[in-house]
Each structure stands twice: as structure tokens, then as C-alpha cells.
């Protein structure tokens, strides 16, 4: 079933690919399935990436030591507020960011009410090919990576990519 869905989506997009908007959005990750990986919630519970299957997911790799990430966080908070009810799951994966209480303190300060997980640097690097922070991946309901963002983004930019996937 999942395979069939992927195939259909793929065909649909091949048909649409004459549209320059779609073509320009292409990144090397396009339509690759999101890698399988398990991160941890702040209380230590393991959370597999596949848990989010069925939602549109924006995974944001960040760190409490990364100034450009801070710049982006308020944008992500706004994006999450705007689209959560329509099925957008913003997931922040904090990498190398100290104790859970430090991360919680940080979340409170920035009003981060989307889901925060803790990730291991080696996994983030090897499986998600993240070489710089912040990096975000936009994943559709089928679990396919639709876009990779390098560096801080604005709500406006993200919204344009997120909205069509929610429909």
C-alpha cells in the first residue's frame, strides 16, 4: 500500500514536472523516504521518526549553541501555531544541547511549544547528512522528503511549501 502511494505520488509529480515551480523546488533529497531513526523525548522516551507518518512533518535540526538557529525558532513557533490543526507536525531535534533541563529552560524562553526531541550527532550526520545547523527537512504525509532547508528560514518561505502538502 505504502509503495503504491509512493508510486502514485511520484507519477503525479512527474506529470506536474513541467511546472517550473515544482522543478525549482527540487533538491537532491526529493522524494527519498525519510531515513529510519530513533530520537528521544526530553523524558528519555524513544521516539521513532516513523511515528509521525501520516502528518506533514518539518524536522528542524538545531542546537542550544547555535545562534542562527535561535533566529529561526520564532518563525517555526508561528508556523506550528498556524498549521498544527491542519496536520503539520514541527519537530525540533536538539543536537549536542546539554541536559534536558537546559533544553526545557531554553524552550520556555523561546515559547517553543512544538515537539522537541534529542538527537545524537553521529546519527544526524550520517543518516540525515546534516553538516550545518539549522537544517530542516520537509516530509510529506507519505514519509517522503520534499525539501531540505539550509540555514534559518522564515515562516513565509516555509508556509509556501507546507500549505500545498496539507491539502
Amino acid at each position: 500500500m505504502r509503495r503504491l502511494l509512493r508510486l502514485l505520488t511520484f507519477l503525479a509529480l512527474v506529470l506536474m514536472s513541467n511546472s517550473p515551480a515544482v522543478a525549482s523546488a527540487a533538491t537532491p533529497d526529493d522524494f527519498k523516504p525519510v531515513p529510519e531513526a530513533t530520537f528521544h523525548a526530553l523524558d528519555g522516551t524513544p521516539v521513532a521518526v516513523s511515528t509521525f507518518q501520516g502528518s506533514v512533518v518539518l524536522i528542524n535540526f538545531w542546537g542550544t549553541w547555535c545562534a542562527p538557529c535561535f533566529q529561526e525558532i520564532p518563525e517555526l513557533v508561528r508556523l506550528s501555531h498556524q498549521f498544527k490543526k491542519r496536520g503539520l507536525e514541527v519537530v525540533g531535534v536538539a543536537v549536542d544541547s546539554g541536559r534536558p533541563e537546559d533544553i526545557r529552560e531554553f524552550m520556555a524562553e523561546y515559547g517553543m511549544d512544538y515537539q522537541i526531541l534529542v538527537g545524537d550527532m553521529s546519527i544526524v550526520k550520517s543518516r540525515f547528512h546534516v553538516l550545518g545547523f539549522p537544517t530542516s527537512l520537509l516530509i510529506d504525509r507519505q514519509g517522503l522528503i520534499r525539501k531540505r532547508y539550509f540555514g534559518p528560514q522564515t515562516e513565509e518561505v516555509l508556509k509556501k511549501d507546507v500549505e500545498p502538502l496539507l491539502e
Partner: protein
Amino acid sequence: MSNRSWNKRRATVEQIETGRRRWLGLRGWVVLALIGGGLIVGLWMAVGKTFSLSPDESVSAAHPPSRPPGNQLADAPSPYLREAARQPVHWLPWGQEAFRWAQEEDKPILLDIGAIWCHWCHVMDVESYENEDIAALINRDYVAIKVDRDERPDIDRRYQEAVQGLTGRGGWPLTAFLTPDGKVFFGGTYFPPDNRGRRPGLKTLLPTLAEAYKTRKAEVLASAEQLSTALTRRARQSVQAGTITGELVDAIVAQMAQRFDVVNGGFGTGTKFPAASAIELALARYFLDHDPKLLQIATKTLDAMAQGGVYDQIGGGFFRYSTDPQWRVPHFEKMSYDNAELLVNYLHAYQATGKALYREIAEGIIAYVNDMLSDQDNGGFYAHQDADMTREDDGDYYTWTVQEVRQALPREEAEVIQRYYDIQPRGEMRENPFKNVPFIASSPEAIATALSIPTARVQSLIDQGKTRLLQARTKRKTPLVDKTIYIDRNGMLISAYLEAFQALGDEQAKAFALKTLDLLLRTTYREGKGMYHAYSEGQARLPGLLDDQVQMAKALLDAFGVTGERRYLTTAKDLMDYAITQLWDPTEGGFFDRHPQGEALAALERPFKDVEDNPSSSPNGVAALVLDRLAYLTNDGHYEKKALQTLQAFAGSAKGAGRFAATYALAVHYHLNRSAQVVIIGKKPDPQTQALWTAAIKTYRPGKLVAVYDPSELNVKDLPPAVAGAVKVFGVQGAPRAYVCAGSTCAPPTSDLDEVVALTKSYGLQN
């Protein structure tokens, strides 16, 4: 072999180099110049005879009883002014008093602006201001004011602008005739005592202009007023705002490349000034886009200067400028600011290319500055070294006749040295045509072939010969060093010495830079009130200018980078806060060169805001560079905003300024392409921290920023959030790590030395 005709072309002025647009668009001034010229020529021809130069008449000039009699410069702190204390001219120092006397006595002012390193200032002093007849004319009809341009660059630049507006030329000595309220009605640079060709002599000018002031006062006042109005208008119009883009930087770089002299290096085809900021811009852009043309601009220029007579081949350090396009015959004064900026050029070029010559020249500059231009015991860099000893001497200390070389060296050594440095029976100098400026004219290989001896032998003869020539030269009377410690130049040299530590591992340079910095913080800095402009004989003096604040702030940030001591960062912040609150132009943006509510005397009333490198890095450009770095280190977006506003304020005017806007372009470049920012978190004594720190410091990346934070010394509440985050991670992880960011992203933190080097060097670069 060498061109022997330079001496004839030597101008009778210490030249000043200015940007291309400075004198355009002032059509009104041409009229003024004609009025001025007509006034002079007409009066000179008509009434010249009436003004006999009889000493009796001159001596009979009465002084008002209340004005202090005689020359008032004996107690001046400036060595240049003190030197003029023995002149019979009744010089007054710049100040309210002098202008009050001029108004009270209703006399025009003769303003002379010069410097102790300025050859033609000395010539004019000896020829004219030591001449009793001329002094009598001045004392009778004028209030005479003498200004040291190094002490008062703010006064100098305003009057240079006025005289250039009238005549199209500036330089030193600057000789300006002012109305009693300080407005220029006639001026020029060097004037001979007697009429010489088409150049009127002072003996003619002084009475003619005094007479004009008496009999055609309305006209004189009106033309002075007109010029002053034009200058004020120009001051407003010359600063044009715009948006900052990569294309703006590209345009400035392209203009600079267009003026590049592909044959000789440097820019233009005549007199050559170093243009250090243009070289910095070329190196920084080259690092980003690898355009070989940009590297060539830098290396060709630095090679040619290193081999030219503009570099003191025997004693190290650079002279101020070359009178010829081949960099061979310089004006011999050595300025601390040129040597600071050129030192940075050679260090960066060495890091970029690994070429040994650049390292050698950098070390030569440091050795010279250590030896001559610094107070090694107490800290502090001196202002400059004079070019010569007397009026007849145009660089005797630095030049050689064949006979002098033969006397100083054994025969074979002399033979090699003569070929190497092109020492010939007829040299390049004017006063003594047998004197030669040493420049590298041949390679050791060529000399080896010509003399049929091994190259290694030639090289060792050159090395020995150089040492022996230096010893022989030391026996000559050494040109004077002005030991005034100017704060802006000290900031530049502190930064340059800290660069030497980064590029060459020169610990001694680092120690001396920090010693100087600490001295100046103790003596010339007041919290909330900025830096003074100068320090001499144990006294801080002269109100600080924008240049002093920003160059010291830059030095402080550099010191913070290599020491991790937060007090340096805090003080840098305080200086920039002072600049923002006191020197900022609230209507148009950008910084004024001096406190707009400070001394409002004569031309100083005219606000001045500029972005050209003239002669050294423009303070507004440096301000933007410093503000951007400060924004990162403090995480205070306010500084970044001010940097952006500064850059925007000048974007329109910088567009066509070419290499004169190089520092500005560099600031725009770094604002748009953030260089690597390396933050190291770890206990300072930990060898692993030290290793990471050293790796980051020594890796070449133009514009990089390195900061070390020791969690045991810090309260996380005082830190920028990202650093605080990293410090907390350290609490868990316990091992020192480096956090490298560039542009708007950060690399994964690392403790691996090779990775730190690789990230510092290239993280965030496209290619």
C-alpha cells in the same frame, strides 16, 4: 638601467592622495578660484611695488598692547610646533584666542598646517618662516596660526578641502589665508620666499593679500563666504545613501582593477601610495571567488613594493610613498599607520600564498617598528620617523653613493651589493645626484652568472653586506622620531601585531601589543567618554576622534580574540557605545569624524563625514566592521543594525569611489558574507583548549572571528545565548570543543584539531 630623471620631477609638496570625485561638481569653485587668482595676480602686478619689503617698514608694525608678544609655541606638546618656536614669526597655537585676536585686530589669518615628517614644510620653515623680513610682514599684517596635522587631522582635512576647492591641489605644507572668522579666501601648499616662475613668493603674496583684505574687504569676505557655503553644501551632498549589495562590492572591485598597474603593481601611473586597504579587499574577495586577477593585484603590488626603494631595504619598514610608478624613489618619511596596514597586507599575503618574501617583509616591518617606532619598555607606538635632517637633505640617511658603499664594505661584497641594489655613480636624488636609493635591481642568480661565483655565495654576500650597510648607516645622524603616541595609529599597530601573532606565531609581538593596549587603557581611556587622541610625556591629550574610537575598538576585539579576556570586549563595546551616542548622525546615518558639539571653531563648525581611505582605512568603514563583530560577540542586534545603517548611509557615494572605498567595500563584503566565527569553550589552561584555540587562530580565513570562553570564569547570564548554550553543554560533556559558524549556519561542534582547521578555513564557502 634605471631611470635617472625622477629627481627632476620631484614636486615641491608633500603629496596627499585623494579619491576621484572629491573635486568634481564644484563649478562654482572654479569661479572662486578665478576671483582669487585674479585678485592675486591683479593686485600683485598693480601694487607690488608699493609694498616695499623694507625691514624698517615691517618692524614698525605695532602690536596691540594686550596680545601676548612674540611666538607662542615654546610650550606646545607637538615637536613640530615646538621646533617652530624659534622662528621669528609670532605663531599662535590653534584656539579661541588666536581667532579672537584676529577679530579684535581685524587682520587676516595666515594658517600653516604641516608636520614634522614633511620635507617641504621644513623647507618653507627655513626659507620663509625663519626669514626676518617675511616674519615681519606676517607679524605686521596677520595673525599667524601653526597646526600640526597629526595632532589635528580634523582641522587639516577641512582646510585641505577648502584649499583643494580653490586650487584643485592639496598637500603639506598647507598655506591658507583666512578671514578673521576662519574662512579661506586664498591658499596653496608650498610657497617660495620670492616669486619663482609662475609661483608667487610669500614676499609678494603676504602684502598683496593683506592689502586686498584692507581695501577690498567686502569682496574678500564675500568670496570666502561663498567658498564656505559651497563646502558646506558639498559636505551634505557628497554623502549619498543607497542599498548595499554584492554588486556594489563588485563595482568597487572592478573600478579598482581598472586602475591597477599591471606592469609595476599598485594603482595609477604616477606617484604611488601603498593602498593597503585595496590589497586587503583583493585578498578577501580572492579567498571567496578565487579570481586569479584579484590575487595578481595583491601579489604584484606587494612584490614590487617589497623590491622597490619604497621599502627600506637596509633597515626594514616602508616609506610613505613613491614619486615614480616603479616604487623606486620614495619620500622617506615612515609613518606608523602605513607600516601597520602594510604589515597586515604582507601577513595575509603570506598566509594566502606561503611565499617566503612576504614573511620576510612582515618581519622586517616588525623589526623596524620594534627598533625605532615604539617604546619597548613602557608600551606604545610612536607616530612616525622624519625623512631627513636638513633642508638640503632629501633622504641622505637612507641613500648611498658608490663611494659610501665601497667604504663600508669589503670589495667583493661591495661589488655584489652595487649590482643587487643598483648603486651607480649617478643616483636618483636631487640634492646630491651621487646618492642612490637601494632597490632590488637584480637577482642573486643573475649576479652569480655575471661575476662567475656560486649563487649561495652571492646570497651570503648580500646578507652580510646588508648588515654592514645598516651598521654604517647607524653612524649617520638619525632622522627624528616623533614620539607622540596617537591612539588611532596605536590601535592599528596593536591589531597588526596581533595579526603577526596569528600568522607567524610571534609571541613577542602579541606581548608588546597587549602591553601597549593596557597602557593606553590606563592612560587615555575614560569609561563612557571614549579615547583621547594622543598621549605624550605621560599626558593624555587632544579630544578623541572617530578614528581613535573605532581603531581602538578593533584592537580590543582582536585582543579579546587572542586572550579571551572579557574586559577587552567590554571596553570595545563601551567605545562603540560612545561613538553611537556621541558621533552618530541621527538624520542621515553614519558617523561624524569628531564630536559635533565639540570645539566649534572656524572650519570645525563644518560637519565632516566620510568613507574614503585617506590615507588609511576610513573610520566609517572600520566602524561598520567593528559593529558587525560586536553584534556577534554580544548577540546584540542593535550593533548589527548600526553597521547596516552606516553602510547604507554611504552606499551611493561609495559606488564610484573605486579603491578609495576599499575599507567600506570590505565592510559590505563581510556584512553580506559572514566569515567564520569560531567559539571555543573550554578551560583556558587545558592543553586541549589551547590546541583548539591555536589551531583556530593560526588558520587563515579573512575576516574570521575567534573567541574563547572558559566556563570556570564565566557567569552564563552575561553571555550571548548561543555561547551560554555551549557552556551548559560543556557542563555535561566536560571536554573543550570548537563551535564554528559562517554565513548563517553552524557546523557540528568538534574537538578534533584537523576538523577545526578545516572548518575555520572553509566552512560555509560555496566552492
